[in-house]
């Protein structure tokens, strides 16, 4: 019974393909894989916008939007209608073709990133042998679209924002990829399906998720920080919140193209979170062995929602980082820590299981964290501030 519910979408797709004429079967199969992605993730985007606004509001001692629909949950409809009906202004001196293509490229690459995420058991759009490399390749193309948006607006603030955004994204790609290398080393494969299947076992009630190892925990923390930076989310949203009036690289976009940028950015956030779940949190595997009766796709979306909640929490808490603080953090802290995590993962693989393995692998990570952190702050602690003229 639980197996049937777990595989309900797979069986639906197979029966639909079986019952369609032979010439159309490949097309029907491809469409039935792609259309659910195109439907589910934008609806998740709509839900996330309202959850984010209400969550941030509650953190800030206020209500969020609560006029449209029960508790404001139909607000995304109002926002969508508004952005659809706004006038689409293109600056007169803008590069028309590039200006038009930039949001399209962003949304296209964002959707492409979902094709290698295993959403449930046997539920993946494309089972590539090097799925993880595909993901990083497509997110590199996403950076290009942000540059196109900033350049084509012929606005020096947009250009500056785009340059900063691209610099931020390429700096954080290095720790992102290095922190996923440790998982690839442990799983021995670049295929996302294989990585999840390696994590789907249980010893007792505890799962084999990679986040429950010292190098996996460090790698997961680094991956999540780099993911926040890659999706230009607070506290790394300098490119888009620059002086809070000039919106950075999408200043000159209005109406539906602005909505497409937002959509692309949030979809990118979901995709990279989904990759983090696949690599570290066991993908669609249940957290405890007695919970495997819950369908696998529910676990994936539950983990995705929890991580989105964590993103919203961090957004409501931390102030924005300055550009030089951001770059220092990426190159001076995260990159060395990623290398230490890879070292630790390597040691883990060659030692026999036991407490000693835990201690030996956790030691370099803790030492690195403490010492690099101390070096980064320049040896000065934060003292209590003295306000000379206030007393």
């Amino acid at each position, binding site marked *: 019974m639980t197996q049937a519910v777990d595989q309900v979408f797979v069986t639906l797709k197979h029966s639909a393909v079986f019952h369609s004429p032979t010439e159309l079967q490949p097309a029907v199969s491809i469409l039935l894989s792609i259309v659910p992605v195109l439907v589910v993730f934008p609806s998740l985007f709509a839900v996330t916008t309202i959850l984010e606004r209400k969550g941030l509001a509650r953190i800030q001692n206020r*209500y969020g939007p609560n006029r449209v629909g029960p508790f404001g949950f139909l607000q995304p409809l109002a926002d969508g209608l508004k952005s659809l009906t706004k006038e689409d202004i293109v600056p007169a001196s803008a590069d028309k073709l590039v200006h038009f293509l930039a949001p399209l490229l962003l949304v296209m690459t964002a959707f492409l990133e979902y094709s290698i995420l295993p959403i449930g058991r046997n539920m993946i759009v494309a089972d590539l042998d090097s799925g993880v490399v595909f993901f990083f390749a497509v997110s590199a193309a996403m950076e290009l679209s942000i540059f196109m948006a900033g350049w084509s607006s012929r606005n020096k603030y947009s250009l500056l924002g785009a340059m900063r955004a691209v610099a931020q994204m390429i700096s954080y790609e290095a720790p992102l990829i290095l922190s996923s290398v440790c998982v690839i080393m442990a799983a021995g494969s670049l295929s996302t399906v294989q990585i999840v299947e390696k994590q789907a076992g249980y010893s007792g009630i505890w799962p084999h998720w990679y986040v429950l190892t010292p190098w996996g925990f460090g790698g997961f923390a680094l991956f999540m920080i780099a993911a926040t930076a890659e999706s230009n989310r607070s506290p790394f949203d300098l490119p888009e919140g620059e002086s809070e009036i000039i919106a950075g690289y999408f200043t000159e976009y209005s109406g539906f193209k602005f909505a497409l940028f937002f959509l692309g950015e949030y979809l990118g956030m979901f995709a990279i979170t989904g990759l983090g779940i696949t690599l570290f949190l066991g993908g669609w595997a249940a957290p405890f062995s007695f919970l495997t009766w819950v369908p696998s796709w529910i676990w994936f979306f539950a983990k995705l929602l929890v991580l989105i909640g964590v993103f919203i929490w961090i957004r409501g808490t931390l102030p924005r980082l300055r550009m030089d603080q951001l770059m220092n953090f990426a190159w001076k802290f995260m990159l060395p820590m990623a290398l230490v995590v890879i070292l630790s993962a390597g040691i883990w693989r060659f030692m026999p299981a036991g407490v000693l393995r835990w201690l030996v692998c956790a030691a370099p990570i803790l030492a690195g964290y403490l010492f690099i952190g101390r070096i980064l*702050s320049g040896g000065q602690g934060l003292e209590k501030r003295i306000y000379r003229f206030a007393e």
Partner: protein
Amino acid sequence: MLGKGIAKGLAETARNFFGSFVAEERLTTVQFPDERLIQPEATRVFPFLVYDGADSEMGLRCVACKICEVECPPKCIYIDKSAGKKPDYAGKQQFFPDKFDIDVSVCMSCQICVEVCPFDAIKMDTAFELSTDDRFAGLMWPKERLARSNSYYHSIHPAEATEVDAQLAEKKAKAEAKPVAGAAAAR
């Protein structure tokens, strides 16, 4: 240690988030106009003219002395004194204003007119939802619009109104006692 401040910050925001569902002080929004904040008693917006009793013409306390018109800093009060007289609260014959206009687009709510009025005839109102679609005529309020009963004054400024009523009753008693004393002294 690196990250300690972030952890404390995250704990604080989590406490705020969960507290906003249970505690009053963690969700301080007052959803105007469905909910309203209680205004303090000394709230003031624009002036109004007090009348005693039920008749807004005969009970009007204003005697058209024009002190408020002179003292008003932006000069937004326009008074025309009447030709004849009418009895006031103590029965004495007094002038009354034929026209008493206040231009509320100019009025700066400084309350000087209230402070200088010797007859407690003009007081500050608390109503602020006053939008109109006529910029000039809609904001030049005539005497009919400005006159409000003493019971209305009690409802918006109870402590002040009670004090004013006590003072006026005292003055009335003194005024009534004087002719008696004068008659007694004359005898």
